[in-house]
């Protein structure tokens, strides 16, 4: 674009073309670009040097410790919910790990649930059924237009304010109790059989996938359909059951029992986790519903008509014709919703769920090392975000490849 001199030779007399004069250095685009960038780097460097030296001077002058050594020190505080064993005598590093796992735990569950609800609501908004469509759109408008933090406070206050105290916990089902202290439910203790069952479950999943691949090839070859869903579920459920029976069918139910204050034994979900999961799922599902709706609308109506002309049923039209095409429109914005959900899980700190931010915040207050704690927290989120978007980009390319 930046050609020096006229290029449409036909309009210009050759005599008029002068040998390109030497452009002065300050008018030369390349030189200017280099200079401009050099200045940018210099400004940035000076700014960085200034900030770092001010900070170091401040830290020294005010006698604040710095460095990441504290990660090795004993944390000294307890964490309410942990996925891995943790005690106050463990290090800060382990405390951060516990927080990170809690963040991943609630985000992963939230993503799965929000996707399911979002797809259902998105389809419901397009339903020919007036009542269903209206209900769905009222849901979407409500959850999208109220701040998530307010919704979280609401759910948390509703759970802790309206449920009975733990001593009067209601038994939803025998052995399952609901109260201000959360949801307590029995778990099956497999004891020695656990490793076998776990391996069998893995094998079952692998077998189900293998079967699906085989069934697809068979359908391509012969046109005959196989009940993939049924057989697959059978494999995934059946393998562990067989393994359990073979290893002597040990059955021990760990049922929550009422102690002096709360229930002990079994497993439990705290109200903080429940409220966070509920809030994240509902809020994000509103956005996913809109994405799904616009994705479906982006598929030309002719596709649906053509599918109908082929005699496909409504469910199958959706599953085999519309959704696969809509998916290409849906996946990129869906990715950013998943990232948003993960980042929004940081609001856990407001309702007392010990996620990464909450642990970092506690560590910050106990050690006074704000810079280190916040940097760790940001670095972890950045890694999570970048790796999630890398994965979704990969998936997006795969979906896009289907196009012919």
């Amino acid at each position: 674009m930046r050609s020096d001199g006229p290029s449409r030779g036909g309009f210009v007399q050759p005599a008029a073309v002068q040998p390109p004069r030497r452009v002065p250095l300050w008018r030369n685009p390349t030189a200017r670009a280099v200079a401009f960038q050099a200045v940018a780097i210099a400004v940035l460097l000076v700014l960085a040097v200034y900030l770092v030296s001010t900070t170091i001077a401040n830290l020294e002058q005010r006698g604040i410790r710095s460095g990441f050594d504290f990660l090795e020190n004993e944390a000294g505080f307890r964490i309410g919910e942990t996925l891995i064993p943790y005690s106050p005598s463990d290090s800060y590093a382990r405390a951060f790990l516990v927080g990170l796992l809690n963040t991943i735990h609630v985000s992963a569950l939230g993503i799965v649930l929000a996707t399911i609800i979002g797809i259902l609501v998105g389809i419901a908004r397009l339903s020919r059924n007036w009542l269903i469509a209206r209900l769905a759109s009222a849901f979407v408008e409500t959850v999208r237009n109220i701040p998530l933090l307010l919704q979280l406070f609401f759910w948390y206050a509703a759970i802790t304010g309206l449920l009975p105290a733990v001593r009067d916990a209601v038994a939803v089902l025998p052995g399952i109790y609901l109260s201000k202290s959360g949801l307590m439910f029995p778990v099956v203790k497999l004891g020695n059989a656990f490793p076998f069952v776990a391996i069998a479950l893995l094998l079952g999943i692998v077998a189900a996938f293998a079967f699906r691949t085989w069934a697809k090839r068979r359908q391509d070859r012969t046109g005959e359909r196989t009940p993939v869903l049924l057989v697959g579920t059978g494999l995934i459920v059946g393998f562990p059951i067989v393994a359990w029976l073979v290893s002597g069918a040990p059955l021990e139910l760990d049922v929550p029992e009422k102690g002096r204050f709360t229930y002990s034994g079994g497993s439990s979900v705290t109200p903080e986790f429940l409220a966070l999961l509920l809030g994240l799922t509902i809020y994000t599902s509103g956005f996913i519903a809109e994405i799904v709706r616009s994705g479906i609308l982006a598929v030309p109506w002719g596709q649906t008509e053509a599918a109908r002309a082929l005699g496909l049923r409504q469910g199958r039209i959706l599953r085999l014709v519309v959704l696969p095409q809509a998916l290409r429109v849906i996946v990129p914005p869906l990715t950013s919703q998943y990232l948003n959900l993960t980042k929004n899980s940081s609001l856990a700190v407001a309702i007392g769920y010990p996620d990464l931010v909450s642990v970092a915040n506690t560590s910050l207050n106990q050690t006074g090392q704000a810079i280190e704690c916040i940097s760790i927290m940001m670095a972890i989120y950045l890694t999570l975000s970048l790796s999630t978007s890398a994965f979704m980009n990969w998936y997006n390319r795969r979906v896009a490849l289907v196009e012919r």
Partner: protein
Amino acid sequence: MSDRAYVAERILPDEEPPAASIGFVGWLRANLFDGFWNSMLTVAAALILIRFVPPLVDWLFLDAVWGDAPPDACREAAGACWAVIWEKHRLILFGRYPYQEHWRPVLGMAILITLVGFSCNRANWRAWLVGAWALGLAAFFALMWGGFFGLTFVPNVLWGGLPLTLLLAIIGIVVAFPVSMLLALGRRSHMPVIRAICVCYIELIRGVPLISLLFMASFMLPLFMPTGVNIDAMLRAQIAIIMFSSAYLAEVIRGGLQAIPRGQFEAAEAIGLGYWKMQRLVILPQAIRLVIPPIVNTFIGLFKDTSLVAIVSLTDLLLATRQAVSDPLWRAYFVEGYIFIAIIYFCFCYFMSKYSQYLERQFYTGQTRN
């Protein structure tokens, strides 16, 4: 006349369509009872509505306690306790702003909302609108701070409630806008260093939650500043919000830039415009016009996200409400307080989202006609 009997001799009057396909019944059939599954769905949804809506209406309106009533009256009533709103609405709306001076934030918010309303009309999108905004914001700050004409000075640690929420959101977008334009241009620049800086900034900010930026602003920023330089808590939160929204806005504007056909750049260069003139006169006006609806959506997100400042102890609408309902006398009625501000947030966001949809339609038809 012939005797060919099969010829109709007169036009028969139009018959009414079958009763079941028109009018109310027809509408019902088409929209609610179209086939077995749809009918089942309708019945199920209707049953759920019948089960839940009447008690909800009772709770919200019929059994509710309205107006000025003591907490005891609420304890006896079966419905919602709107008396808590009556009692606490000033605290919820204005936080700790001095009670006698509440007319000032009211007037200030009126100015801001008028400006926003004014800016919604496309006929007013002229250069003088920028001046109007500058004046309006100056008036807002003057009113809130006071300290002249006998108005008492109110330091901004006392600002709170809805004016604070509006202020954080509006300043957040107004200041972030030029920054984000530079970032978007930088990200599309041919200079690798500039591009790298902008990409890093944008991706870094978009990769972390807003709350971590707020924490950074309130805990780390003071350590970056030389001794004696103080940035108060409100400004710190505002800086975090600006950093956050500028990264998101930059991506929106980049989308607009990418939609501008190459010919526009070439044409601008052909008539000898330099880089900045080209951007200012040719590219950006078109690009921004294209992305105004998504900018409004970003603003909606930002408006909701300002509620996060409650976590770093700024008394915005949300924290003011929480303080109001933590009064032991009224603690049982937190739901009413939350519903009240949920309605406020909803009104603002709903209006803005409808406005952005309206703009989208306007721009869309404009594009196809040309």
